[in-house]
């Protein structure tokens, strides 16, 4: 799947461990979709999982009404931990986009999928001095490679979210956009 052939409806799962900021990422993505005038549903895991276990946020964005609110087969999967990769990768559509953080996801198969494997956490820490922005980087990367929402609305959503962090978040976003533009598929590298 590439930007140009964006289908009407995209199901995205952002997954990792509690504390990696994926719920926030899901919210920002959803808000961006909303601002763009698209239909959006966002759901997430609740309960014990959100106190430290695995964590996920699902976003469906579509220009048609969205009926069933849960993502079942993902058009895009962001997996920031090995556990979430292992658990959710099977439900990624064949033509789906996979984005993984190689700091934590060590074992993964290169299939026919669009795979983007980068050490997001490390990049965040190196370039922004803290892993706190990993979520924004991964999200922005996702937006860039899928075009699920436009850059403009992503930016607006990021700004809206926590105005006090707007500046650093925008920096993270820009960093991610650059990474995405410069990205070489690992498939080519490693196969």
């Amino acid at each position, binding site marked *: 799947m590439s930007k140009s052939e964006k289908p009407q409806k995209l199901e995205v799962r952002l997954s990792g*461990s*509690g*504390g990696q900021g994926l719920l926030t990422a899901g919210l920002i993505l959803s808000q961006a979709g909303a601002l763009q005038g698209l239909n959006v549903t966002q759901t997430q895991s609740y309960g014990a999982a959100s106190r430290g276990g695995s964590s996920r946020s699902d976003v469906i964005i579509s220009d048609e009404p969205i009926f069933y609110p849960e993502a079942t087969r993902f058009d895009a999967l962001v997996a920031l*931990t090995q556990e979430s990769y292992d658990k959710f990768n099977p439900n990624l559509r064949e033509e789906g986009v996979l984005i993984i953080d190689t700091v934590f996801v060590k074992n993964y198969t290169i299939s026919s999928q669009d795979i983007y494997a980068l050490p997001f956490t*490390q990049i965040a*820490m190196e370039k922004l001095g*803290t*892993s*706190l922005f990993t979520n924004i980087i991964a999200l922005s990367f996702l937006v860039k490679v899928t075009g699920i929402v436009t850059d403009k609305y992503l930016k607006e959503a990021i700004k809206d979210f926590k105005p006090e962090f707007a500046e650093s978040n925008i920096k993270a976003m820009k960093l991610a956009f650059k990474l995405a533009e410069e990205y070489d598929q690992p498939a080519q590298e490693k196969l």
Partner: protein
Amino acid sequence: MSEKVEKNRDGLIIKQADTPLKMQVEVNEVKYEGDYRKAPVFIFHDWCKKCGICVAFCPTKALGRKLDGSPFVEHPEKCIHCETCDKLCPDFAITGAKR
């Protein structure tokens, strides 16, 4: 403090404040972690949640805290087997009891 990151001999260490609770990180090997019978103090890392309580309240400072927050026996010789760590660990994950 939460904005700092340090490289350690043995791998990437992320400070606790930044670390998702169950995130797999590489840590440096420390003494007396692996062998139950030989250790004056034994830490069961599978259950330990890295809260830091044992380290904070060990009266002899026998315990140290790694950068990822997990406890290790920094000065095994200092342990007086007071069992403070045993009693204050919320996770039944450390014992300084005499064996």
